[in-house]
C-alpha cells in the first residue's frame, strides 16, 4: 500500500522518474499540460505502487511525495 502525490505544476516532464520506476507505472500525460507547458508525470496504476521512492529520488524538481 503506497501513495504518490505530484506537485504537478513543478513538473518539467523530464521523464527521469518514468525511467526509474521499477514497476513501470509512471508516464508523462498524453492529455494535459501544466502551467509551465510541460506534460506532467502521472501514475497509470496507483494500486501497483510499492512506495520504493525511486521516482522521487531521481526527480530533480521535488515533484513527488511518497507515502507508504
Amino acid at each position, binding site marked *: 500500500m*503506497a*501513495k504518490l502525490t505530484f506537485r504537478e505544476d513543478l513538473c518539467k516532464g*523530464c521523464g*527521469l522518474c518514468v525511467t526509474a520506476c521499477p514497476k513501470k507505472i509512471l508516464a508523462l500525460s498524453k492529455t494535459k499540460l501544466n502551467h509551465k507547458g*510541460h506534460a506532467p508525470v502521472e501514475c497509470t496504476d496507483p494500486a501497483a505502487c510499492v512506495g520504493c521512492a525511486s521516482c522521487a529520488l*531521481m*526527480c530533480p*524538481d*521535488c515533484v513527488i511525495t511518497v507515502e507508504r
Partner: protein
Amino acid sequence: MAIVFQKPKSLTDVPYHYCPGCTHGIVHRLVAEAIDALGIEGKTIGIAPVGCSVMAYDYFKCDMIEASHGRAPAVATGVKRALPDHVVFTYQGDGDLASIGLCETVSTACRGENVTIIFINNAIYGMTGGQMAPTSLIGQVTQTSPYGRDPKTQGMPIRICELLATLDAPAYLERVAVNSVAHVRQAKKAIHKAFQNQVEGKGFSLVEVISTCPTNWGLTPEKACQFVEEKMIPFYPLGCFKDKENGK
C-alpha cells in the same frame, strides 16, 4: 501511511530555473537532506557560484552569499574564519571550480579549511550556452570545441578528486554520480558525510558529483544519464579518493 519521501525542509518553495532533467535539482535536494538530517539549517551559510547554479541562493533556506566566478572557496574561507562554529558550504560547477577558480580550490584544500565543497562536474559550461569545460571529455563536441576536444590543442580533461588527493590536508574526497537510483543513494551518503565531517571539525571535504546537462549535450534526460554511465564514469571513476579518518 507515513510520508517516506518529500521535499526537504531546508529548501525554499522557489521553483528551480534549471532545464528539464538537469540533475542540479537532485544535488540541491541531497544537500538540503544533509542539512535537515544534521539539524544545521540555522547555522549554515552557503556560497553560490557563477554558472548555472548562480541562483542557488534562492533555493536554500539558510543564509546565502553569491560569490564571483571561481572565488567561492575564498569567500567560504572568509566566512568560516569569522564563524568557525557555523557550517559553510560552496556549490560550484566545473568551470567555476576547476578552471577560473582552480587556484582557490587547491589552496583551500591545501589549508585543510573546515568547509564542505559540492562540485558539479557535467563536462560543460551550461549557463553561457555549452562551451568546453576543463572537464569536457576528449572528442566532446561543444560550442567552443566544434570539432571535438582535441588534446593536442585543447589539452586533457582534469580529474579534480585525483588532483586534490595528492595533497596531505583534505579530510575527504569522493566522486559520485546522480544518473541512476543506485548512484543517487551513494551520492546522498557522500554529501551527508561531507557535511558531517565539517560539523565534527574534520576538515576539508569535497564531493564531486558527475551530473548531466541534457540541453547542452543535445541529449534527452534519459540519454544524458546513459552518457554519464557510458562515457563520463569510465573517465571519471566513482569512489572515495581520500578519507583520512579511515586511513585512506
